[in-house]
Protein backbone atom coordinates (compact mmCIF):
# COMPACT_ATOMS: atom_id res chain seq x y z
CA UNK A 1 0.00 0.00 0.00
CA UNK A 2 2.70 2.38 1.00
CA UNK A 3 4.61 1.53 -2.12
CA UNK A 4 1.69 2.64 -4.29
CA UNK A 5 1.43 5.91 -2.41
CA UNK A 6 5.09 6.63 -2.88
CA UNK A 7 4.93 6.11 -6.63
CA UNK A 8 2.14 8.67 -7.00
CA UNK A 9 4.34 11.50 -8.23
CA UNK A 10 3.46 14.96 -9.47
CA UNK A 11 3.36 13.66 -13.01
CA UNK A 12 0.91 10.92 -12.07
CA UNK A 13 -1.35 13.38 -10.36
CA UNK A 14 -1.43 15.67 -13.36
CA UNK A 15 -2.23 12.70 -15.58
CA UNK A 16 -5.07 11.75 -13.23
CA UNK A 17 -6.41 15.27 -13.46
CA UNK A 18 -6.26 15.18 -17.25
CA UNK A 19 -8.02 11.83 -17.37
CA UNK A 20 -10.75 13.03 -15.05
CA UNK A 21 -11.35 16.05 -17.24
CA UNK A 22 -11.40 13.98 -20.36
CA UNK A 23 -13.92 11.55 -18.89
CA UNK A 24 -16.25 14.30 -17.77
CA UNK A 25 -16.13 15.70 -21.30
CA UNK A 26 -14.62 18.98 -20.18
CA UNK A 27 -11.42 18.70 -22.15
CA UNK A 28 -11.83 20.43 -25.43
CA UNK A 29 -9.77 19.65 -28.44
CA UNK A 30 -7.13 22.26 -28.21
CA UNK A 31 -5.95 23.87 -31.39
CA UNK A 32 -3.01 25.45 -29.65
CA UNK A 33 0.43 24.45 -30.79
CA UNK A 34 1.44 21.29 -28.98
CA UNK A 35 4.90 22.55 -28.10
CA UNK A 36 3.54 25.84 -26.84
CA UNK A 37 1.06 23.99 -24.63
CA UNK A 38 3.82 21.82 -23.27
CA UNK A 39 6.00 24.75 -22.34
CA UNK A 40 3.04 26.54 -20.75
CA UNK A 41 2.56 23.51 -18.53
CA UNK A 42 6.10 23.86 -17.25
CA UNK A 43 5.75 26.09 -14.17
CA UNK A 44 9.41 27.05 -14.05
CA UNK A 45 9.43 28.02 -17.71
CA UNK A 46 6.32 30.16 -17.25
CA UNK A 47 7.83 31.85 -14.20
CA UNK A 48 10.97 32.42 -16.28
CA UNK A 49 8.95 33.96 -19.09
CA UNK A 50 7.21 36.34 -16.70
CA UNK A 51 10.46 37.57 -15.14
CA UNK A 52 12.05 37.74 -18.58
CA UNK A 53 9.19 39.84 -19.98
CA UNK A 54 9.25 42.23 -17.03
CA UNK A 55 12.98 42.87 -17.42
CA UNK A 56 12.78 43.15 -21.21
CA UNK A 57 9.81 45.53 -21.06
CA UNK A 58 11.45 47.75 -18.48
CA UNK A 59 14.59 47.90 -20.60
CA UNK A 60 12.59 48.79 -23.71
CA UNK A 61 10.53 51.45 -21.95
CA UNK A 62 13.45 52.66 -19.86
CA UNK A 63 12.95 56.40 -20.54
CA UNK A 64 9.34 56.16 -19.32
CA UNK A 65 10.24 54.38 -16.08
CA UNK A 66 13.25 56.36 -14.97
CA UNK A 67 13.19 59.80 -13.47
CA UNK A 68 16.90 60.36 -13.98
CA UNK A 69 19.36 60.17 -16.82
CA UNK A 70 21.69 57.19 -16.11
CA UNK A 71 24.71 59.28 -17.03
CA UNK A 72 23.72 62.46 -15.20
CA UNK A 73 26.34 63.33 -12.62
CA UNK A 74 25.10 65.09 -9.52
CA UNK A 75 27.90 65.82 -7.11
CA UNK A 76 25.51 67.11 -4.47
CA UNK A 77 24.06 63.65 -3.97
CA UNK A 78 26.97 61.25 -3.80
CA UNK A 79 26.68 57.73 -2.35
CA UNK A 80 23.16 58.36 -1.05
CA UNK A 81 21.35 55.35 0.43
CA UNK A 82 18.05 54.29 -1.15
CA UNK A 83 15.28 56.79 -0.49
CA UNK A 84 11.99 57.86 -2.04
CA UNK A 85 13.88 60.17 -4.36
CA UNK A 86 16.42 57.61 -5.54
CA UNK A 87 14.84 54.18 -5.18
CA UNK A 88 18.17 52.37 -5.21
CA UNK A 89 20.39 55.20 -4.09
CA UNK A 90 23.20 56.91 -5.99
CA UNK A 91 26.78 56.01 -6.84
CA UNK A 92 30.11 57.72 -6.29
CA UNK A 93 29.36 60.59 -8.66
CA UNK A 94 25.67 60.87 -7.81
CA UNK A 95 24.21 58.91 -10.71
CA UNK A 96 20.89 57.23 -9.97
CA UNK A 97 21.48 53.47 -9.59
CA UNK A 98 17.95 52.46 -10.54
CA UNK A 99 18.07 54.19 -13.92
CA UNK A 100 21.57 52.83 -14.47
CA UNK A 101 20.29 49.29 -13.92
CA UNK A 102 17.29 49.80 -16.20
CA UNK A 103 19.30 51.47 -18.97
CA UNK A 104 22.21 49.08 -18.39
CA UNK A 105 19.84 46.23 -19.09
CA UNK A 106 19.44 47.51 -22.65
CA UNK A 107 23.14 47.17 -23.38
CA UNK A 108 23.68 43.93 -21.44
CA UNK A 109 20.72 42.21 -23.08
CA UNK A 110 21.76 43.55 -26.47
CA UNK A 111 25.23 42.08 -25.98
CA UNK A 112 23.88 38.74 -24.76
CA UNK A 113 21.14 38.30 -27.32
CA UNK A 114 23.08 39.88 -30.17
CA UNK A 115 26.10 37.64 -29.58
CA UNK A 116 23.96 34.52 -29.28
CA UNK A 117 22.09 35.32 -32.49
CA UNK A 118 25.32 36.22 -34.26
CA UNK A 119 27.03 33.03 -33.13
CA UNK A 120 23.97 31.04 -34.20
CA UNK A 121 23.87 32.73 -37.59
CA UNK A 122 27.53 31.95 -38.28
CA UNK A 123 27.60 28.50 -36.66
CA UNK A 124 24.31 27.24 -38.03
CA UNK A 125 24.72 28.49 -41.58
CA UNK A 126 28.17 26.89 -41.80
CA UNK A 127 27.13 23.75 -39.91
CA UNK A 128 24.05 23.29 -42.02
CA UNK A 129 25.88 23.41 -45.32
CA UNK A 130 29.03 21.60 -44.20
CA UNK A 131 27.06 18.89 -42.40
CA UNK A 132 24.94 18.28 -45.48
CA UNK A 133 27.76 18.31 -47.99
CA UNK A 134 30.36 16.55 -45.88
CA UNK A 135 33.79 16.02 -47.38
CA UNK A 136 36.58 18.55 -47.38
CA UNK A 137 34.55 21.62 -46.34
CA UNK A 138 33.19 19.74 -43.37
CA UNK A 139 36.65 18.52 -42.40
CA UNK A 140 38.15 22.00 -42.53
CA UNK A 141 35.42 23.61 -40.43
CA UNK A 142 35.46 20.73 -37.98
CA UNK A 143 39.17 21.20 -37.35
CA UNK A 144 38.72 24.96 -37.18
CA UNK A 145 36.00 24.65 -34.55
CA UNK A 146 38.19 22.23 -32.61
CA UNK A 147 40.94 24.82 -32.55
CA UNK A 148 38.62 27.50 -31.22
CA UNK A 149 37.14 25.17 -28.66
CA UNK A 150 40.55 24.05 -27.40
CA UNK A 151 40.97 27.44 -25.72
CA UNK A 152 39.36 27.82 -22.32
CA UNK A 153 36.58 30.24 -23.18
CA UNK A 154 37.50 33.10 -20.87
CA UNK A 155 41.15 32.92 -21.95
CA UNK A 156 40.19 33.21 -25.63
CA UNK A 157 37.80 36.08 -24.89
CA UNK A 158 40.45 37.99 -22.94
CA UNK A 159 43.09 37.24 -25.58
CA UNK A 160 40.83 38.72 -28.25
CA UNK A 161 39.99 41.69 -26.04
CA UNK A 162 43.68 42.45 -25.73
CA UNK A 163 44.13 42.19 -29.51
CA UNK A 164 41.01 43.99 -30.72
CA UNK A 165 40.64 46.51 -27.90
CA UNK A 166 37.62 47.38 -25.80
CA UNK A 167 34.38 48.51 -27.37
CA UNK A 168 30.77 47.43 -27.43
CA UNK A 169 30.92 46.23 -31.03
CA UNK A 170 34.23 44.43 -30.48
CA UNK A 171 32.77 42.58 -27.51
CA UNK A 172 29.89 41.23 -29.60
CA UNK A 173 32.31 40.24 -32.38
CA UNK A 174 34.53 38.49 -29.82
CA UNK A 175 31.59 36.58 -28.36
CA UNK A 176 30.57 35.50 -31.86
CA UNK A 177 34.12 34.32 -32.58
CA UNK A 178 34.27 32.32 -29.35
CA UNK A 179 30.69 31.05 -29.52
CA UNK A 180 30.16 29.82 -33.06
CA UNK A 181 31.98 26.52 -32.47
CA UNK A 182 29.41 24.76 -30.28
CA UNK A 183 26.57 26.05 -32.50
CA UNK A 184 28.33 24.71 -35.56
CA UNK A 185 28.88 21.34 -33.88
CA UNK A 186 25.24 21.07 -32.88
CA UNK A 187 23.86 22.06 -36.29
CA UNK A 188 26.29 19.72 -38.02
CA UNK A 189 25.39 16.75 -35.82
CA UNK A 190 21.70 17.37 -36.46
CA UNK A 191 22.30 17.59 -40.22
CA UNK A 192 24.25 14.34 -40.27
CA UNK A 193 21.18 12.45 -39.07
CA UNK A 194 18.60 14.50 -40.99
CA UNK A 195 20.30 14.19 -44.35
CA UNK A 196 19.67 10.45 -44.33
CA UNK A 197 15.89 10.94 -44.16
CA UNK A 198 13.75 9.86 -47.07
CA UNK A 199 12.33 13.27 -47.86
CA UNK A 200 15.84 14.49 -48.50
CA UNK A 201 16.36 11.66 -50.97
CA UNK A 202 13.09 12.65 -52.64
CA UNK A 203 14.09 16.32 -52.87
CA UNK A 204 17.43 15.29 -54.32
CA UNK A 205 15.78 13.19 -56.98
CA UNK A 206 13.59 16.16 -57.90
CA UNK A 207 16.80 17.94 -58.75
CA UNK A 208 16.54 20.77 -56.21
CA UNK A 209 19.79 22.56 -55.59
CA UNK A 210 21.79 21.95 -52.46
CA UNK A 211 21.11 25.35 -50.88
CA UNK A 212 17.36 24.97 -51.17
CA UNK A 213 17.45 21.48 -49.74
CA UNK A 214 19.57 22.25 -46.74
CA UNK A 215 18.38 25.73 -45.79
CA UNK A 216 14.73 25.59 -46.79
CA UNK A 217 13.81 21.97 -46.23
CA UNK A 218 16.13 20.46 -43.64
CA UNK A 219 17.00 23.45 -41.45
CA UNK A 220 13.42 24.00 -40.15
CA UNK A 221 13.51 20.47 -38.74
CA UNK A 222 16.59 21.29 -36.69
CA UNK A 223 15.15 24.51 -35.29
CA UNK A 224 14.26 23.06 -31.86
CA UNK A 225 17.78 22.42 -30.56
CA UNK A 226 18.98 25.61 -32.25
CA UNK A 227 16.46 27.68 -30.31
CA UNK A 228 17.44 25.96 -27.07
CA UNK A 229 21.08 26.65 -27.80
CA UNK A 230 20.45 30.32 -28.57
CA UNK A 231 18.59 30.76 -25.28
CA UNK A 232 21.27 29.08 -23.18
CA UNK A 233 24.05 30.97 -24.97
CA UNK A 234 22.27 34.26 -24.30
CA UNK A 235 22.42 33.46 -20.60
CA UNK A 236 26.09 32.53 -20.87
CA UNK A 237 27.07 35.67 -22.79
CA UNK A 238 25.25 37.93 -20.34
CA UNK A 239 27.21 36.32 -17.51
CA UNK A 240 30.45 36.72 -19.45
CA UNK A 241 29.76 40.36 -20.27
CA UNK A 242 29.07 41.00 -16.60
CA UNK A 243 32.29 39.25 -15.55
CA UNK A 244 34.40 41.06 -18.14
CA UNK A 245 32.92 44.48 -17.38
CA UNK A 246 33.33 43.78 -13.68
CA UNK A 247 37.03 43.24 -14.33
CA UNK A 248 37.04 46.47 -16.33
CA UNK A 249 37.81 44.65 -19.57
CA UNK A 250 34.39 44.46 -21.18
CA UNK A 251 32.22 47.32 -22.38
CA UNK A 252 33.94 50.72 -21.90
CA UNK A 253 33.09 52.18 -18.51
CA UNK A 254 31.27 55.24 -19.85
CA UNK A 255 28.42 53.04 -21.08
CA UNK A 256 26.13 51.75 -18.33
CA UNK A 257 25.86 47.96 -18.38
CA UNK A 258 25.10 45.54 -15.59
CA UNK A 259 28.75 44.53 -15.38
CA UNK A 260 29.98 48.10 -15.37
CA UNK A 261 27.71 48.99 -12.45
CA UNK A 262 29.17 46.07 -10.53
CA UNK A 263 32.66 47.27 -11.31
CA UNK A 264 32.43 49.67 -8.37
CA UNK A 265 32.17 46.75 -5.95
CA UNK A 266 35.82 45.90 -6.50
CA UNK A 267 36.51 48.41 -3.79
CA UNK A 268 36.16 46.78 -0.39
CA UNK A 269 34.81 49.93 1.26
CA UNK A 270 31.94 50.13 -1.24
CA UNK A 271 31.35 46.42 -0.90
CA UNK A 272 30.96 46.81 2.84
CA UNK A 273 29.21 50.15 3.23
CA UNK A 274 27.28 50.83 0.04
CA UNK A 275 25.37 47.62 -0.61
CA UNK A 276 22.89 49.36 -2.92
CA UNK A 277 25.64 49.96 -5.44
CA UNK A 278 26.18 46.29 -6.25
CA UNK A 279 23.65 43.98 -4.62
CA UNK A 280 20.51 45.03 -6.58
CA UNK A 281 22.24 44.78 -9.94
CA UNK A 282 23.72 41.42 -8.93
CA UNK A 283 20.22 40.20 -8.15
CA UNK A 284 18.86 41.55 -11.44
CA UNK A 285 21.56 39.76 -13.45
CA UNK A 286 20.95 36.52 -11.54
CA UNK A 287 17.19 36.76 -12.01
CA UNK A 288 17.47 37.49 -15.69
CA UNK A 289 19.94 34.68 -16.35
CA UNK A 290 17.88 32.33 -14.21
CA UNK A 291 14.73 33.15 -16.17
CA UNK A 292 16.52 32.64 -19.49
CA UNK A 293 17.86 29.30 -18.26
CA UNK A 294 14.40 28.18 -17.18
CA UNK A 295 12.98 29.15 -20.56
CA UNK A 296 15.79 27.28 -22.28
CA UNK A 297 15.16 24.18 -20.20
CA UNK A 298 11.44 24.39 -20.87
CA UNK A 299 12.10 24.76 -24.58
CA UNK A 300 14.33 21.70 -24.53
CA UNK A 301 11.73 19.61 -22.75
CA UNK A 302 9.01 20.69 -25.14
CA UNK A 303 10.96 20.24 -28.35
CA UNK A 304 13.02 17.19 -27.55
CA UNK A 305 11.13 14.43 -25.73
CA UNK A 306 14.21 12.22 -25.50
CA UNK A 307 15.92 14.69 -23.17
CA UNK A 308 13.22 14.66 -20.54
CA UNK A 309 13.87 13.45 -17.05
Amino acid at each position, binding site marked *: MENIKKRN*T*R*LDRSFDKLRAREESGLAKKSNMNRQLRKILNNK*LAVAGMIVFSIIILSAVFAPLICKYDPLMINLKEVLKAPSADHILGTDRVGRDIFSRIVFGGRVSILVGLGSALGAALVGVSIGCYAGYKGGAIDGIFL*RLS*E*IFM*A*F*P*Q*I*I*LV*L*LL*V*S*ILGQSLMNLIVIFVITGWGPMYRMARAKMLSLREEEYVQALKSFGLNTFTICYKHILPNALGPIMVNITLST*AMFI*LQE*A*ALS*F*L*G*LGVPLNIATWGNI*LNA*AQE*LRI*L*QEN*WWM*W*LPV*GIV*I*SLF*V*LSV*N*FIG*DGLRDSTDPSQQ*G
Partner: protein
Amino acid sequence: MLSYAIRRMLILIPMLIVISFFIYSGLELMPGDAVSYMIDPEAAAEISPEKLDALRDSLGLNDPFVLRYVKWFGGVLKGNFGYSLSSGVPIRDIVFDRLPATLELSFIALILSTIFGSVLGFISAIRKGSIADNTLTIVGMLGVSVPQFVFGLVAILIFSLKLKWLPVGGRLMPEYVTYWDRFPHIIMPALVLAATMTAGVMRYSRSSMLDSMNKEYIKTARSKGLPEWRVNLVHGFRVALTPVIVLVGFRLPTLIGGAVVIEQIFQWPGIGNEFITAVRGQNFPLVMMIALFSVFAVLIASFLVDLFTAILDPRVKLG
Protein backbone atom coordinates in the same frame (compact mmCIF):
# COMPACT_ATOMS: atom_id res chain seq x y z
CA MET B 1 44.95 0.21 -27.66
CA LEU B 2 48.41 1.38 -28.58
CA SER B 3 47.35 2.17 -32.13
CA TYR B 4 44.43 4.17 -30.77
CA ALA B 5 46.78 6.18 -28.59
CA ILE B 6 49.15 6.82 -31.45
CA ARG B 7 46.39 7.86 -33.84
CA ARG B 8 44.89 10.14 -31.21
CA MET B 9 48.33 11.65 -30.73
CA LEU B 10 48.71 12.26 -34.45
CA ILE B 11 45.54 14.37 -34.45
CA LEU B 12 46.97 16.40 -31.61
CA ILE B 13 50.14 17.48 -33.39
CA PRO B 14 48.63 19.45 -36.30
CA MET B 15 46.31 21.21 -33.86
CA LEU B 16 49.23 22.25 -31.70
CA ILE B 17 51.04 23.54 -34.75
CA VAL B 18 48.08 25.50 -36.09
CA ILE B 19 47.25 27.05 -32.72
CA SER B 20 50.82 28.02 -32.02
CA PHE B 21 50.98 29.49 -35.53
CA PHE B 22 47.94 31.65 -34.73
CA ILE B 23 49.49 32.74 -31.47
CA TYR B 24 52.74 33.60 -33.21
CA SER B 25 50.90 35.58 -35.88
CA GLY B 26 49.17 37.44 -33.08
CA LEU B 27 52.52 38.21 -31.47
CA GLU B 28 53.91 39.48 -34.77
CA LEU B 29 50.91 41.72 -35.38
CA MET B 30 51.25 43.35 -31.99
CA PRO B 31 52.61 46.87 -31.80
CA GLY B 32 56.24 47.08 -30.80
CA ASP B 33 59.31 45.33 -32.10
CA ALA B 34 59.93 41.64 -31.67
CA VAL B 35 63.30 42.55 -30.21
CA SER B 36 61.59 44.22 -27.29
CA TYR B 37 60.26 40.95 -25.95
CA MET B 38 63.10 38.70 -27.00
CA ILE B 39 65.69 40.37 -24.88
CA ASP B 40 65.67 41.63 -21.36
CA PRO B 41 64.14 45.16 -21.38
CA GLU B 42 66.71 46.45 -18.93
CA ALA B 43 69.47 45.45 -21.30
CA ALA B 44 67.53 46.83 -24.26
CA ALA B 45 67.53 50.31 -22.77
CA GLU B 46 71.29 50.51 -22.92
CA ILE B 47 71.75 49.31 -26.48
CA SER B 48 72.24 51.86 -29.27
CA PRO B 49 69.93 51.82 -32.36
CA GLU B 50 72.71 50.51 -34.60
CA LYS B 51 73.36 47.67 -32.26
CA LEU B 52 69.64 46.91 -32.12
CA ASP B 53 69.58 46.74 -35.90
CA ALA B 54 72.50 44.39 -35.92
CA LEU B 55 70.80 42.38 -33.25
CA ARG B 56 67.66 42.23 -35.36
CA ASP B 57 69.74 40.84 -38.21
CA SER B 58 71.50 38.33 -36.04
CA LEU B 59 68.17 37.24 -34.53
CA GLY B 60 66.90 36.57 -38.02
CA LEU B 61 64.04 39.05 -37.83
CA ASN B 62 64.44 39.72 -41.53
CA ASP B 63 63.89 36.05 -42.33
CA PRO B 64 60.66 34.92 -44.00
CA PHE B 65 57.68 34.67 -41.66
CA VAL B 66 57.40 30.89 -41.70
CA LEU B 67 61.08 30.44 -40.89
CA ARG B 68 60.76 32.84 -37.97
CA TYR B 69 57.78 30.89 -36.73
CA VAL B 70 59.65 27.59 -36.89
CA LYS B 71 62.52 29.05 -34.90
CA TRP B 72 60.16 30.54 -32.34
CA PHE B 73 58.23 27.30 -31.95
CA GLY B 74 61.45 25.39 -31.48
CA GLY B 75 62.33 27.81 -28.71
CA VAL B 76 58.94 27.36 -27.07
CA LEU B 77 59.34 23.59 -27.09
CA LYS B 78 62.69 24.04 -25.37
CA GLY B 79 61.07 26.23 -22.74
CA ASN B 80 62.05 29.66 -24.06
CA PHE B 81 58.78 31.55 -23.74
CA GLY B 82 60.23 35.03 -24.11
CA TYR B 83 60.18 37.90 -21.62
CA SER B 84 57.39 39.80 -19.93
CA LEU B 85 57.13 43.37 -21.22
CA SER B 86 56.43 44.95 -17.86
CA SER B 87 58.97 43.30 -15.59
CA GLY B 88 61.49 41.74 -17.93
CA VAL B 89 61.18 38.44 -16.09
CA PRO B 90 61.26 35.32 -18.31
CA ILE B 91 57.68 34.25 -18.96
CA ARG B 92 58.53 30.66 -18.11
CA ASP B 93 59.47 31.72 -14.59
CA ILE B 94 56.20 33.64 -14.20
CA VAL B 95 54.10 30.71 -15.38
CA PHE B 96 55.80 28.15 -13.18
CA ASP B 97 55.79 30.55 -10.27
CA ARG B 98 52.03 31.06 -10.47
CA LEU B 99 51.02 27.55 -11.50
CA PRO B 100 51.08 25.92 -8.03
CA ALA B 101 48.61 28.45 -6.61
CA THR B 102 46.16 27.92 -9.47
CA LEU B 103 46.48 24.16 -9.31
CA GLU B 104 45.99 24.12 -5.54
CA LEU B 105 42.79 26.16 -5.81
CA SER B 106 41.47 24.29 -8.81
CA PHE B 107 42.10 20.82 -7.48
CA ILE B 108 40.40 21.47 -4.18
CA ALA B 109 37.41 23.00 -5.99
CA LEU B 110 37.34 20.14 -8.47
CA ILE B 111 37.40 17.47 -5.78
CA LEU B 112 34.75 19.20 -3.66
CA SER B 113 32.44 19.84 -6.61
CA THR B 114 32.81 16.25 -7.83
CA ILE B 115 31.91 14.79 -4.45
CA PHE B 116 29.01 17.15 -3.74
CA GLY B 117 27.78 17.17 -7.32
CA SER B 118 27.66 13.41 -7.78
CA VAL B 119 26.13 12.73 -4.36
CA LEU B 120 23.45 15.42 -4.75
CA GLY B 121 22.72 14.27 -8.29
CA PHE B 122 22.38 10.72 -6.98
CA ILE B 123 19.92 11.80 -4.26
CA SER B 124 18.01 13.85 -6.79
CA ALA B 125 17.73 10.91 -9.19
CA ILE B 126 16.56 8.25 -6.71
CA ARG B 127 13.97 10.68 -5.30
CA LYS B 128 12.89 11.86 -8.73
CA GLY B 129 9.89 14.18 -8.61
CA SER B 130 10.11 14.67 -4.83
CA ILE B 131 10.46 17.97 -3.02
CA ALA B 132 14.16 17.29 -2.49
CA ASP B 133 14.64 16.74 -6.21
CA ASN B 134 12.79 19.90 -7.19
CA THR B 135 14.64 21.98 -4.62
CA LEU B 136 17.98 20.63 -5.79
CA THR B 137 17.06 21.35 -9.42
CA ILE B 138 16.19 24.95 -8.62
CA VAL B 139 19.27 25.42 -6.43
CA GLY B 140 21.37 23.95 -9.21
CA MET B 141 19.86 26.41 -11.66
CA LEU B 142 20.68 29.23 -9.27
CA GLY B 143 24.23 27.93 -9.13
CA VAL B 144 24.70 28.41 -12.87
CA SER B 145 22.76 31.68 -13.00
CA VAL B 146 24.28 33.77 -10.24
CA PRO B 147 27.49 35.31 -11.59
CA GLN B 148 30.52 33.71 -9.95
CA PHE B 149 31.90 37.06 -8.86
CA VAL B 150 28.62 38.22 -7.28
CA PHE B 151 28.65 35.01 -5.27
CA GLY B 152 32.25 35.71 -4.31
CA LEU B 153 31.49 39.30 -3.32
CA VAL B 154 28.60 38.23 -1.10
CA ALA B 155 30.88 35.64 0.54
CA ILE B 156 33.58 38.25 1.15
CA LEU B 157 31.03 40.66 2.61
CA ILE B 158 29.56 38.09 4.99
CA PHE B 159 32.54 36.02 6.09
CA SER B 160 35.39 38.52 5.87
CA LEU B 161 33.96 41.97 6.39
CA LYS B 162 30.99 41.34 8.69
CA LEU B 163 31.86 38.18 10.64
CA LYS B 164 35.64 38.53 10.22
CA TRP B 165 36.10 34.76 10.18
CA LEU B 166 38.21 34.52 7.07
CA PRO B 167 40.80 36.72 5.35
CA VAL B 168 39.63 38.85 2.42
CA GLY B 169 42.13 37.45 -0.01
CA GLY B 170 45.75 36.63 -0.74
CA ARG B 171 47.55 33.37 -0.21
CA LEU B 172 50.89 33.71 1.50
CA MET B 173 52.27 35.89 4.25
CA PRO B 174 55.92 36.05 5.31
CA GLU B 175 55.15 34.81 8.82
CA TYR B 176 53.38 31.65 7.63
CA VAL B 177 55.25 28.48 8.44
CA THR B 178 52.96 25.49 7.98
CA TYR B 179 50.23 24.80 5.49
CA TRP B 180 47.61 25.32 8.19
CA ASP B 181 48.70 28.93 8.57
CA ARG B 182 47.55 29.72 5.08
CA PHE B 183 44.63 27.32 4.99
CA PRO B 184 42.05 30.01 5.92
CA HIS B 185 42.94 31.86 2.71
CA ILE B 186 41.87 29.05 0.44
CA ILE B 187 38.56 28.23 2.13
CA MET B 188 36.48 30.93 0.49
CA PRO B 189 37.81 30.93 -3.08
CA ALA B 190 37.76 27.13 -3.18
CA LEU B 191 34.22 26.90 -1.83
CA VAL B 192 32.88 29.60 -4.14
CA LEU B 193 34.54 28.02 -7.16
CA ALA B 194 33.34 24.58 -6.10
CA ALA B 195 29.79 25.79 -5.54
CA THR B 196 29.49 27.15 -9.06
CA MET B 197 30.98 23.98 -10.51
CA THR B 198 28.82 21.64 -8.43
CA ALA B 199 25.64 22.61 -10.31
CA GLY B 200 26.93 21.25 -13.61
CA VAL B 201 28.21 18.01 -12.11
CA MET B 202 24.92 17.57 -10.26
CA ARG B 203 22.80 17.85 -13.39
CA TYR B 204 25.08 15.50 -15.22
CA SER B 205 25.18 12.87 -12.49
CA ARG B 206 21.38 13.09 -12.05
CA SER B 207 20.67 12.31 -15.68
CA SER B 208 23.39 9.66 -15.75
CA MET B 209 21.92 8.01 -12.65
CA LEU B 210 18.39 8.14 -14.09
CA ASP B 211 19.77 6.54 -17.20
CA SER B 212 21.42 3.71 -15.32
CA MET B 213 18.32 3.13 -13.16
CA ASN B 214 16.35 2.15 -16.27
CA LYS B 215 18.85 -0.51 -17.22
CA GLU B 216 18.11 -4.24 -17.11
CA TYR B 217 20.76 -5.05 -14.52
CA ILE B 218 18.98 -2.82 -12.01
CA LYS B 219 15.80 -4.81 -12.52
CA THR B 220 17.81 -8.00 -12.08
CA ALA B 221 19.31 -6.71 -8.87
CA ARG B 222 15.92 -5.71 -7.57
CA SER B 223 14.30 -9.02 -8.48
CA LYS B 224 17.06 -10.82 -6.65
CA GLY B 225 15.64 -9.21 -3.53
CA LEU B 226 18.58 -6.99 -2.73
CA PRO B 227 17.84 -4.11 -0.38
CA GLU B 228 16.98 -0.86 -2.14
CA TRP B 229 20.09 1.02 -0.96
CA ARG B 230 22.31 -1.75 -2.31
CA VAL B 231 20.61 -1.66 -5.68
CA ASN B 232 20.94 2.10 -5.93
CA LEU B 233 24.36 2.52 -4.48
CA VAL B 234 26.30 -0.53 -5.58
CA HIS B 235 24.60 -1.37 -8.87
CA GLY B 236 23.30 1.98 -10.04
CA PHE B 237 25.62 4.65 -8.73
CA ARG B 238 28.82 2.88 -9.57
CA VAL B 239 27.91 2.64 -13.23
CA ALA B 240 26.46 6.14 -13.31
CA LEU B 241 29.74 7.48 -12.01
CA THR B 242 31.81 6.66 -15.09
CA PRO B 243 30.47 9.47 -17.34
CA VAL B 244 30.73 11.84 -14.39
CA ILE B 245 34.40 11.02 -14.03
CA VAL B 246 34.89 11.65 -17.73
CA LEU B 247 33.20 15.03 -17.35
CA VAL B 248 35.49 15.86 -14.46
CA GLY B 249 38.47 14.87 -16.58
CA PHE B 250 37.41 17.30 -19.25
CA ARG B 251 37.05 20.01 -16.65
CA LEU B 252 40.57 19.52 -15.38
CA PRO B 253 42.37 21.57 -18.05
CA THR B 254 39.79 24.34 -18.20
CA LEU B 255 40.55 24.94 -14.56
CA ILE B 256 43.73 26.77 -15.47
CA GLY B 257 41.55 29.37 -17.13
CA GLY B 258 38.38 28.68 -15.22
CA ALA B 259 39.42 30.37 -12.03
CA VAL B 260 40.36 33.67 -13.69
CA VAL B 261 37.52 35.67 -12.16
CA ILE B 262 37.67 33.99 -8.76
CA GLU B 263 41.42 34.52 -8.55
CA GLN B 264 40.90 38.18 -9.32
CA ILE B 265 38.25 38.72 -6.62
CA PHE B 266 40.17 36.94 -3.90
CA GLN B 267 43.54 38.28 -5.07
CA TRP B 268 44.71 34.70 -5.37
CA PRO B 269 48.19 34.85 -6.92
CA GLY B 270 47.57 32.32 -9.68
CA ILE B 271 47.89 32.21 -13.44
CA GLY B 272 44.44 33.73 -13.96
CA ASN B 273 45.34 36.74 -11.87
CA GLU B 274 48.57 37.20 -13.79
CA PHE B 275 46.66 36.86 -17.06
CA ILE B 276 44.22 39.65 -16.16
CA THR B 277 47.08 41.90 -15.13
CA ALA B 278 48.79 41.18 -18.43
CA VAL B 279 45.64 41.92 -20.44
CA ARG B 280 45.13 45.17 -18.55
CA GLY B 281 48.74 46.21 -19.00
CA GLN B 282 48.79 45.31 -22.72
CA ASN B 283 51.61 42.91 -21.93
CA PHE B 284 51.11 40.95 -25.16
CA PRO B 285 53.90 38.36 -24.93
CA LEU B 286 52.66 37.28 -21.52
CA VAL B 287 49.00 37.20 -22.66
CA MET B 288 49.85 35.09 -25.69
CA MET B 289 52.08 32.68 -23.84
CA ILE B 290 49.61 32.06 -21.02
CA ALA B 291 46.92 31.43 -23.65
CA LEU B 292 49.23 29.05 -25.51
CA PHE B 293 50.13 27.32 -22.27
CA SER B 294 46.49 26.83 -21.33
CA VAL B 295 45.70 25.39 -24.76
CA PHE B 296 48.59 22.97 -24.43
CA ALA B 297 47.18 21.89 -21.10
CA VAL B 298 43.69 21.43 -22.57
CA LEU B 299 44.92 19.37 -25.50
CA ILE B 300 47.12 17.13 -23.42
CA ALA B 301 44.45 16.59 -20.78
CA SER B 302 41.76 15.81 -23.34
CA PHE B 303 44.16 13.32 -24.90
CA LEU B 304 44.62 11.63 -21.53
CA VAL B 305 40.87 11.64 -20.84
CA ASP B 306 40.17 10.05 -24.22
CA LEU B 307 42.76 7.41 -23.51
CA PHE B 308 41.29 6.77 -20.07
CA THR B 309 37.78 6.44 -21.53
CA ALA B 310 39.03 4.04 -24.15
CA ILE B 311 40.58 1.89 -21.44
CA LEU B 312 37.34 1.92 -19.43
CA ASP B 313 35.08 1.26 -22.38
CA PRO B 314 36.52 -0.83 -25.19
CA ARG B 315 33.60 0.11 -27.46
CA VAL B 316 35.01 3.63 -27.87
CA LYS B 317 36.47 4.04 -31.30
CA LEU B 318 38.31 6.85 -32.91
CA GLY B 319 35.60 9.14 -34.28
